[in-house]
């Protein structure tokens, strides 16, 4: 069966790829485009490490068939820093020691970004809920919560 052409925007850049039948967005991002920031922790929708934002919505790229992404706008952790300046969430994750092995980090940051994009001033419970689909096996959850809350605070300060 022939490969299928798919076009979408990745972190603001137009991408056009021929994808295999059955290829997931995760595989296309990682293997074809070379954006390896989404991680393949389980490839079956149970760990959150492949999370990306598609058309403004947090998605599991491992359960998203690439063919369904025609025309979509996709954001990954690799696209967050602008002009070498870290995104406030990235900064906050560093400052709060919210990374350990780092494998869950890009997915966590995406989950946090999706939250802050629609709720710039979340409660602690809302942050906990927002990362409830992201497993951290080093179990550094608490610093992650702190980082997200801290990024939200710094955003509101800079917006003020």
């Amino acid at each position, binding site marked *: 069966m022939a490969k299928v052409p798919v076009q979408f925007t990745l972190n603001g850049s137009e991408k056009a790829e021929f994808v295999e039948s059955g290829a997931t967005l995760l595989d296309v991002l990682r293997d074809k485009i070379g954006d390896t920031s989404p991680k393949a922790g389980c490839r079956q929708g149970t760990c959150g490490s492949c999370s990306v934002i598609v058309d403004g919505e947090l998605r599991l790229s491992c359960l998203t068939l690439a063919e369904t992404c025609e025309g979509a706008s996709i954001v990954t952790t690799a696209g967050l820093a602008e002009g070498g300046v870290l995104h406030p969430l990235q900064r906050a994750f560093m400052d709060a020691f919210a990374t350990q092995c*780092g494998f869950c980090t890009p997915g966590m940051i995406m989950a946090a970004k999706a939250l802050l994009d629609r709720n710039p001033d979340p409660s602690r419970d809302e942050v906990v809920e927002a990362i409830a689909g992201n497993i951290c096996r080093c179990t550094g959850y608490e610093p992650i919560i702190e980082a997200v809350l801290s990024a939200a605070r710094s955003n509101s300060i800079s917006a003020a």
Partner: protein
Amino acid sequence: MAEGTAPISPEGAAIGRPIARDDGVAKVTGRARYAADCRPPGLLHAVIAPSRIARGRVTAFDLDAAMAEPGVVAVMTPANRPPLAEDPDAKTAPIVFRLDLLQDDRIRYAGQPVAVVIGETLEAAEEGAFRLAPAYAAEPALVDIDAAEPFVPETVGLGAPVERRRGDVEAALATAAHRVQRRYETAAQVHNPLEPHAVVAVWEGDRLWVDTPSQNVARAQRRIAGLLGLPPDHVHIRSPFVGGGFGAKAFPAGPQVLGILAARLVGRPVKLVLSRAQMFGAVGHRAPTRQTLRLGLADDGTIAALAHHARVASSRFDDFFEPAAALSGGVYAAGAVETTHEAVRLDIATPVVMRGPGEATGSLALECAIDEAAAELGLDPLAFRRLNHADTEPISGRPFSSKALRACYDAGAARFGWAGRPLAPRSLSDSDGRLVGLGIGTAVFPSMMFQAEARALLRADGAAIVELGAHEIGQGAATALRQIAADALGLPLSAVTLRTGASDLPDAGGAAGSSHTATAGSAIHAAGTALVARLAALATADPASPLHGAGNAVLFAADGALHAGDGRRDPHAAVLARAGLGAIEARGAAAPDRAARASHAMAAHGAVFAEVAVDPDLGAIRVTRLVGAFAAGRIVNPRLARSQLVGGMIWGLSLALHEAAQFDPATGAIANADLGAYRIPVHADLPFVEALLVAEEDTLVNPLGVKGVGEIGITGTAGAVANAVWHATGVRIRRFPIRIEDLALAMPGREKEDDA
């Protein structure tokens, strides 16, 4: 630290500071390159076809169907697997595990690789593996630890004694005023680092480049070189970032070697990444245990006898016996103490070290039994633990090199608010009617150390590069070791670059046994010491140096300069410049001090306090507070150390309440082999977890005075949680993880009470 033995600046300019992680930017931007992120040109994708049966033979493959899938390049089976120089079942070194590398058609556990399918794309390889549809001749498999015939293995763990005794336990039990005998069960667990095992293998003639996550690149290099018949230096292993290991990456696993063999077979670079289901197969697990504790107690509350017996499971074809009882020789004072093991062989993959191997499950049983003994005597469980504090190591009588456990009890109890805890269980409840309980456990983990080497290079500009094959597996080694290097060289942190994570670098030992900072750090310390000594020799011999004529011994390095006690100084760069040297290099090695270790017991200690709330009808448990206080010698970076301790504590909580790999008795396979059904906690399951660092000085454990913090958190915690559940409910559950139904049905339903 004894004075005058080391050129570390007296204050420890870098050691002890909570500096941010060196790998922070790489990790938050997604640029950190894990093995599976590598994409060499011409890369093919390989997929393992795992066995669905646990015992028997593969009788056929549908090779035609697999090869007919467009994009499939090759199928590797025992028939065409490239030859090996060593039998993968041969014990070629003291600590080496048998590997399944398609040596024959025999199946010895579910999930064993039976073939490897290589494709132009991952999708093609996966579909090819599906179509391969192996046929089996299955034989009855046994996976039930309670149903197998036990035997006494020669050793447990990685060469530890299977039995240890001090005093006559049976006699002491016979005459004890009170006796407590309890049996505890723990489930099999699976490491499940979030990064699955992956290998990207590139052959260039008889040289091999391997990107793969490893907790011990030197060991992996030796093993792979041996299997392939290559000189070790022809095998280049790169492992700059490891997405968690927890023991699963301490030894090279079969699938990693299969990826290398697949690349050999097809003559192209190959990437092989395990699926999450395959992470429950050939890469090790924590064995289930059955543990019996027998305690004899005197009327004054002292422990007269303590016997800990563990039954553990291993595979039919190799030996790893979880040393579950061993730690009980070192925790509580007892008139007589013994630790013994028996084992069974099952049709399962060989278990392997997993965070706190033996200590985790053993501590859980011990801490529960100690709590049950305190209850038997009507004593506060903390008071009972204090009363039986081991001033010397009970099993050996050796003094401890340092032990600040009492201070941990004090600090933890104060922070947690232990005082005033009612003695009787089922005494507390919250405003929603939930039963509240408070529990404690003692944490302990041996302070191990292994051999390591490092080299340091000081450049003319005063900057240094320190190199060793150390491992950043998330614990922060890259950062902490650079802090040690900076102090050893007397340089500001900004002037020190650390290179780790490759087998081409000096062997730094493994990131295992909570020993990495001690081991690799001591090697760095030695290399730095040697380099500073060379520098000092240059300076003191140089008439142009302000330090000319000063004795080496009174010099120390700090802030990028050599200093004499009288205030004279000479910058590193100036010393080199005057000597006309572009750089100087020194190597250092570290090894455990055998004499000190023969005369002293060495361990980190801690006290963990847990509060739980239990729904009285439904049995649902929430841990609402968790406080640990730990003394682990010198702390190199307190933030990193706390991350390790908190992570370990959450593993302990999970051991008590969440994680169990369920072997299906019918198929022998793990029935819940995914992260949906194998329930690693999410943050919503967890309380605020606090780890306090208790000051402790240790001049014997190693030149740096550091103990490990990677594993101790899991000990103590699991028992503290279980003890809190008992205190909340009055129900003692001895099968772990505690299941909702076991607790709920053991409690009378509140409605039923109303009827009474």
